[in-house]
């Protein structure tokens, strides 16, 4: 067994509770003068360090510590609350213009989609009327409907409203603006 190894074990066996030497090193320590002297020095050092009585707070220091901790936490929480409130106060100033700007951008840049959500298919008679006046205009129900509306308006404007039963005014306007008889 090497002395270096034993001394290394002595170093790491040292704590504030003394030096606990593993059993397997004891026989070496009994026969090796250098290692037993080393252990003695370490024990002496440990005794000197241990004799530094336990460091504790005095009652006055403890009181001061708790008061200061409470004071600092109170101050920190108040500051945090103030910061949050500052944000809350800023929300109307920031959010309202932001929402208005976003709405404006959406209005300008997003293409308008057809407001037509539902197109009712024409009856066979209505479709026959369209074919009679315009010929085959394809299978698109929306186109067929628009065409029929236009024809119906030419025949009798009052009938046109009945034709697009269920369609809103906005839907009718859209159809009228976007589809014309000339395109067929």
């Amino acid at each position, binding site marked *: 067994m090497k002395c270096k190894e034993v001394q290394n074990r002595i170093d*790491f066996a*040292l704590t504030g509770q003394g030096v606990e030497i593993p059993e397997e090193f004891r026989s070496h320590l009994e026969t090796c003068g250098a290692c037993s002297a080393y252990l003695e020095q370490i024990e002496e050092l440990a*005794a*000197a360090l241990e*004799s530094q*009585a336990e*460091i504790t707070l005095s009652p006055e220091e403890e009181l001061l*510590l708790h008061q200061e901790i409470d004071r600092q936490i109170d101050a920190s929480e108040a500051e945090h609350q103030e910061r949050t409130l500052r944000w809350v106060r800023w929300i109307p100033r920031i959010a309202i213009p932001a929402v208005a700007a976003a709405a404006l951008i959406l209005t300008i840049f997003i293409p308008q989609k057809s407001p037509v959500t539902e197109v009712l298919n024409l009856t066979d008679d209505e479709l026959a009327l369209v074919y009679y006046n315009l010929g085959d205009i394809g299978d698109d129900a929306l186109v067929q409907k628009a065409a029929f509306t236009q024809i119906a308006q030419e025949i009798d404007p009052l009938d046109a409203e009945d034709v697009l039963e269920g369609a809103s005014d906005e839907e009718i306007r859209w159809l009228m603006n976007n589809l014309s008889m000339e395109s067929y």
Partner: protein
Amino acid sequence: MPDSQNRTEAKIPNSREEFSEFVRQHQNRVFAFLMRMTGNRETALDLTQDTFVAAYEHRAAFRGESAASTWLFQIASNKAKNLLKKLQRETPLDDQLESAPTASDPEGELQQKELVSKVREKLPRLPEKQREAFVLRFYEQMKFNDIARIQGCSVSAAKTNYAEALKKLRRHLLTT
């Protein structure tokens, strides 16, 4: 081994009342550690306050991966490090150490006092990392992996720091 060292809290208390109790459980160990690191009672008290305030403010960051005491020592160690860096000194205000009480030992008191003062003289003058590793191991009986966590280094580096400190203290004891 101090009782609170074995206690592994899952979290740092949220309520102020419970937190005060938590402070009471750990205050002396944190204070003693900072006292040994800075060598100054007043500074140690200030840093103890700062440590607990920081622990409360950042309580959500504690995930219970280590004992709460290890986490506290980590904060305390950083506080001490920052202060020492700020003061730009490797040796703390050791004059305050003189006022620390010693255990009474009527037999061979003089020789023992001499020995104690030798050690006291040297301990605060050790390089910061070595002093810290030694204090945590010797006085707090911490495991090296906890010391490594506190020091932000590998376990072998923590062991080296400790062994270096011990070597220097032993040499100082022999030569002076």
